[in-house]
């Protein structure tokens, strides 16, 4: 087990190294880093100071070393636009994205599980087929397109829900959240549903195939032979069995949701890290871009690492294969 953990850990470090090289190369090797990394409005003395601090007068490999050692100390440079450390901006924007992502995952469970179970129970009915067609659409339509239709329908035509911004927020332990006020929640609803759409489709498929499989099991027939009501059989015996894979998959997809928030946040002008990234790219605020990418990549590598370790604990066969 220890050997396996070390193997996976070293692999993760290698991936992180490769990714940091790509990001570094992107920022430092293309174009003149002095132009890209230093605020053009800074005076000469400040510019020279920055060149020295970033080691831009040194050879490439040495520059990478300086870049990485700074990065490891949490220093990814200051934002040109806001003139504060890039990581700090990301930290202040992160709660908004997390709130959106968690609500989206919540929607995926609350809407996806019952719809999928219904489609599994009534496979041949019109509604059952309609749900599956809907999930295929949910898979193939671009997120931003659906977001646009949401805005057109619910904000412009019907005027029910606001189309942009975060609305009124309340602080919990110093972190502002939207979902506790009506105004905030009404702002949160459409973007969260938009972000959830893909995951809802995914959950519908998982829940449907799970339900169909579970229904064929002997223990369901045995439950019926015990004289249980249909409500109890579907609501307890079937539901509990399909929830395990659904929650596992959604847990894995959380990182994915955060990455896809880039699109939804842009459509709904939601002030999270995704919109920050797009704004920073168009403002050429490179330090923020670098900070975002490195942070997200690290997050993914961490999630993958943890999942691998968890799987190997749950399923010893994975471990054997890995150490061959």
């Amino acid at each position, binding site marked *: 087990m220890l050997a396996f953990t070390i193997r996976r850990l070293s692999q993760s470090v290698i991936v992180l190294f490769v990714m940091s090289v790509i990001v570094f190369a*992107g920022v430092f090797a293309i174009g003149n880093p002095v132009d890209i990394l230093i605020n053009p409005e800074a005076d000469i003395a400040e510019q020279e100071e920055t060149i020295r601090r970033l080691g831009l007068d040194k050879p490439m490999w040495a520059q990478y070393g300086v870049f990485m050692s700074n990065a490891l100390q949490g220093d990814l440079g200051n934002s040109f636009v806001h003139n504060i450390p890039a990581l700090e901006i990301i930290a202040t924007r992160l709660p908004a994205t997390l709130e959106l992502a968690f609500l989206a995952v919540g929607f995926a469970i609350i809407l996806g599980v019952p719809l999928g179970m219904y489609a599994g129970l009534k496979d041949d009915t019109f509604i059952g087929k309609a749900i599956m067609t809907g999930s*295929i659409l949910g898979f193939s339509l671009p997120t931003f397109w659906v977001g646009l239709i949401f805005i057109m329908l619910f904000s*412009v035509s019907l005027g029910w829900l606001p189309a942009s911004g975060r609305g009124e927020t309340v602080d919990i332990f110093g972190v502002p959240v939207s979902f506790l006020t009506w105004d905030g929640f009404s702002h949160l609803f459409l973007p969260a549903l938009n972000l959830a759409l893909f995951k809802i489709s995914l959950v519908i498929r998982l829940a449907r195939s799970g339900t169909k499989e579970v229904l064929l099991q002997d223990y369901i027939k045995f439950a019926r032979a015990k004289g249980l009501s249909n409500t109890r059989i579907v609501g307890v015996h079937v539901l509990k069995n399909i929830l395990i894979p659904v929650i596992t998959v959604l847990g894995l997809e959380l990182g994915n949701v955060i990455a*896809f928030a880039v699109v939804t946040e842009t459509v709904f002008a939601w002030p999270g890290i995704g919109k920050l990234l797009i704004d920073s790219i168009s403002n050429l605020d490179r330090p923020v*871009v670098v900070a975002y990418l490195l942070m997200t990549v690290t997050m993914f590598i961490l999630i993958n690492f943890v999942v691998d370790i968890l799987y190997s604990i749950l399923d010893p066969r994975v471990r054997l294969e890995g150490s061959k």
Partner: protein
Amino acid sequence: MTVTTTPPKAITPFRRFVEDFAEKRLAVAGLFVFVALVLAAIFAPWITPQNPYDLTQIDFMDGRLAPGSSGATMTFWLGTDDQGRDLLSGIFYGLRTSLSVGAISTVIALVIGGSLGLIGAYFGGKIDTIIMRIADLQLSFPAILIALILVSALGQGIDKIIIALVAVQWAYYARTIRSTALVERRKEYIEAATCLAISHRRIVFKHLMPNCTPPLIVVGTVQVAHAISLEATLSFLGIGVPITEPSLGLLIKNGFDYMLSGDYWVSFYPGLALLITIVSINLVGDQLRDVLNPRLQK
């Protein structure tokens, strides 16, 4: 071109394939729509009422006219955008960019991913492990994140977008072709070819590859839709194609600002075109999967 001597009643594999495909009306409709879209994209310069990027043909005074309005020289069936460009013409030109970016990136990714997958499956061992590790690793990141990293590293431009789309897609092909090729490789005809001392390259490309194509076609069709969708997303985010060669995604982005003021059509119609494109490709892809999947064949 030789004249075929096959009698018309003979059931060739191709004929059978066509018949199986035609069983589902929706798929046939999807195919027709898709072909029409491709033709519209190819012949856009000749069939559109206006070249929306020829400044001499555009009157700024026609800006944001509602669908069906008449301008000085023509009727704008789908309205105009903020620059006074005819949206119908804009959509046809946008389709050109969207479809060609999707198609080119898919073909390149198919060649790269397909070759790597074949090589891995044929030679096995270390090469296989390395290729598949990289593919697995890449697939563990969401496509949009990979694309964002590459676009922010490489900068903008159509070529950069294509590189990003290729990078996102190749692993799917490598995986698909590898799994089929691994099954095919164990069959006797490959062994026979090896015994005859035929060169590796010939075995891989002449013998192995043709047998691995059907699943690749299915994945490829679906991936074209994904590529178009991802390109549209990136363009909508403003980090995709440059404004000189607008795709459907960029047209949608341009109209997005006017949507809240009620001028829905600037975004809506390009969006509709995108929707039709993606749905029609998916319909075709779904049916191809059903027809080409040997497990489902009766």
